[in-house]
């Protein structure tokens, strides 16, 4: 068992005259037994972070602690970390049982104990009935579980997974994520999971660490990231389709201040209290964020409409994706998206009205991109 603490960790790759700052002043603590996901776009430094924790990559500066022990100079074996990759090499000519048992054999664990360990783990992973089979005979999902088994059998203190699900078929994915979560809950091991897929991160982890451009942006639960994103990046990255943003400025209004999109006739209603606070804060440039889920086609949602506003727009793309339709819209030169019912079917150029609740309008400082609460 171990907690992990990264303190001001940096990774700079240097080669052929250029330097790439891949991880920047990273502070992150993963508690003992906690499941944390590191989430971020391609190239943000996730794999580099993991490789430093595991010991496969030199730490340019900063410290990594397992419990209170600084591990910077320990080699990977001594750290007692297991890392599972998407494709874990299984020995094709050995049975699953032999594959799982092998790492124990190498360490001189007696046969009886090996047997017991393999069978206990197989029960946990629900692969008891395939122990006698060869890897080639397994389905993707089974192979995945055996791969997890290969990493778990050594009983590591910390368990690390890098994009292990990205080739699992969508229809099996959620089930496997729930399974992995159950395994974590039963084992109680410290786990770190790296992914670019927010569904995976949110389904699995106790807390999600969002990275962008080598730097940590926010660590939080799903609700914190979704409802209180610290900045434009997190608001954009968490949630799907991505959030719509409009550069805006404050208009004093006749009776109450509101936000107006720059160079366009789009206006955004914000709750009275917040509008007053914005007005009191002095003149600034803002960015308005509105999630596609929070833009409702006029007439789609009846019932008591909360206080809010309306946008009219032209349909550019009507994208049917099964459970829902995603509309790409254009209004006064601004492009944005709305999510609608699956049955929605508009032609290019049709005009639509969209309503939103003012409480769903997020406001960011245009300069710092930070959320204005």
């Amino acid at each position, binding site marked *: 068992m171990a907690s992990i603490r990264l303190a001001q960790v940096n990774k700079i*790759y240097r*080669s*052929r005259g*250029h330097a*790439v700052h891949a991880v920047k002043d990273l502070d992150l603590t993963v508690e003992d037994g906690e499941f944390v996901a590191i989430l*971020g*776009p*391609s*190239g943000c430094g996730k*794999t580099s972070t993991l490789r430093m924790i595991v010991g496969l990559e030199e730490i340019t500066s900063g410290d990594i602690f397992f419990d209170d022990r600084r591990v910077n100079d320990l080699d990977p074996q001594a750290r007692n970390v297991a890392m599972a990759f998407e494709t874990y090499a299984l020995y094709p000519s050995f049975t699953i049982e032999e594959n799982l048992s092998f790492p124990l054999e190498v360490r001189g664990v007696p046969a009886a104990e090996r047997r017991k360990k393999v069978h206990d783990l197989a029960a946990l992973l629900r692969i008891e009935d395939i122990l006698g089979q060869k890897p080639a005979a397994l389905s*993707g999902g089974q192979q995945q579980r055996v791969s997890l088994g290969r990493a778990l059998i050594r009983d590591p203190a910390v368990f690390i997974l890098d*994009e292990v699900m*990205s*080739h*699992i*078929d*969508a*229809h*099996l*994915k*959620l*089930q496997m994520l*729930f399974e992995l979560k159950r395994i974590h809950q039963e084992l109680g091991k410290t786990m770190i999971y790296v992914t*670019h*897929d*927010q*569904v995976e991160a*949110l*389904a699995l982890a106790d807390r999600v660490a969002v990275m962008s451009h080598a730097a940590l942006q926010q660590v939080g639960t*799903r*609700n914190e990231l*979704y409802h209180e994103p610290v900045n434009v990046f997190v608001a*954009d*990255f*968490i*949630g*799907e*389709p*991505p959030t719509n943003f409009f550069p805006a400025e404050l208009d004093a209004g006749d009776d109450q201040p509101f936000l107006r999109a720059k160079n366009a006739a789009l206006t955004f209603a914000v709750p009275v209290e917040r509008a007053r606070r914005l007005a009191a804060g002095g003149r600034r440039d803002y960015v308005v964020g509105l999630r596609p*889920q929070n833009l409702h086609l006029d007439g789609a949602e009846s019932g008591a409409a909360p206080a809010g506003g309306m946008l009219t727009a032209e349909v550019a*793309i009507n*994208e*049917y*994706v*099964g*459970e829902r339709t*995603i509309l*790409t819209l254009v209004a006064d030169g601004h492009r944005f*998206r709305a*999510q609608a019912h*699956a049955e929605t079917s508009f032609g290019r150029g049709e005009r639509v009205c969209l309503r939103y609740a003012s409480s769903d309008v997020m406001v960011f400082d245009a300069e710092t991109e930070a959320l204005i609460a």
Partner: protein
Amino acid sequence: MARLRIEGLCKGWDFPVIDNLDLTVEEGEFFVVVGPSGIGKTTLLRLIAGLESADAGRIAIGDHDITNLPPYKRPVAMTFESYALYPHLSVFENIASPLRARRLDAAAIRATVTEVAKLLRIEALLDRRPGEISGGQKQRTALGRTLVAKPQVFLLDEPISHLDAKIRHDLRLQFHALEELRRVATLYVTHDYVEALSLGDRIGVMGRGGLVQIGSARDVFLRPRSLFVAEHLGQPAINAVAARLTGEGTALHVRAGNSGFGFPVVAAHAAALARGDIQRVTVGIRPQHVKVLRNGEDAPGHHVIDGRVEIYEALGANGVLVADAGGVNLTALTSPERDFTHRQPVRLALQTDAVFYFHAESGDNLLL
């Protein structure tokens, strides 16, 4: 002129990966092949590219039979799942390589590479080598190299699978608009049904041996020919419940599980099912057709059953709830803003007119 035409294509004798496959992709058509991993999607592309040889059948592009042409003589451009970048060349040179082969002048090459790199958001990486970039950046470099080629057929194998939801959304829109792709025949392979439904002019769902259904997005999602097709499109996956059909009075009922899961079959479906005189079926219920009712809420036109919460997770844009409903595990799609605790009682409203009925053995859709 340059349509892609495949006739009677076979690969593998004992365990045919491709078994007598016929497919025509028109010039300007964007055809997406979607299917589970390991089913043979990549093999299909490799056969067309000439990287594997067919055991039988023919492949033609326009009027030219290319079945026996070596790969380099085929007018196709392909991205590889493994990227296959030149390790000693920069990202720029990797993308430029098809242009160099066409002997374009330096200015034209620079302009083309820069444009595609911008589109794929890797313009800052052009001087680096493949060993110095991340997994997703390699994938985009490989895609860039393919997009600058001027082939008659594009073969794209999972070209954006390693990217996050945001950039995938953006690239999907780019693909919709990209002239290069929309001018020629494109065969696009993915395991992601959202990508398939969004991009495909037509979609082919691949199962054992070949394409088990071809149609528009609405065809394959709303009228799946089989349980296999229904299971591979949709997340969370469709609920597939082994059930009996029983006549109760004048009405037909579904019964399943060991503690009373069931609902009446709507009249339109009952008529179709009665024709087959079938007792055992697999009922398919999409998670978005299972509504988790709030306190006091009712759902006219739905069948309401009681259940208990087994799993609940709030994800990015929706919540997923798995409930035990009369001995059957049902997955429902909810708003992510709700909160449930383990074993909490819930009422589930099934939209029974949206249910599918599949043959218990063959998996065929009994309503078609």
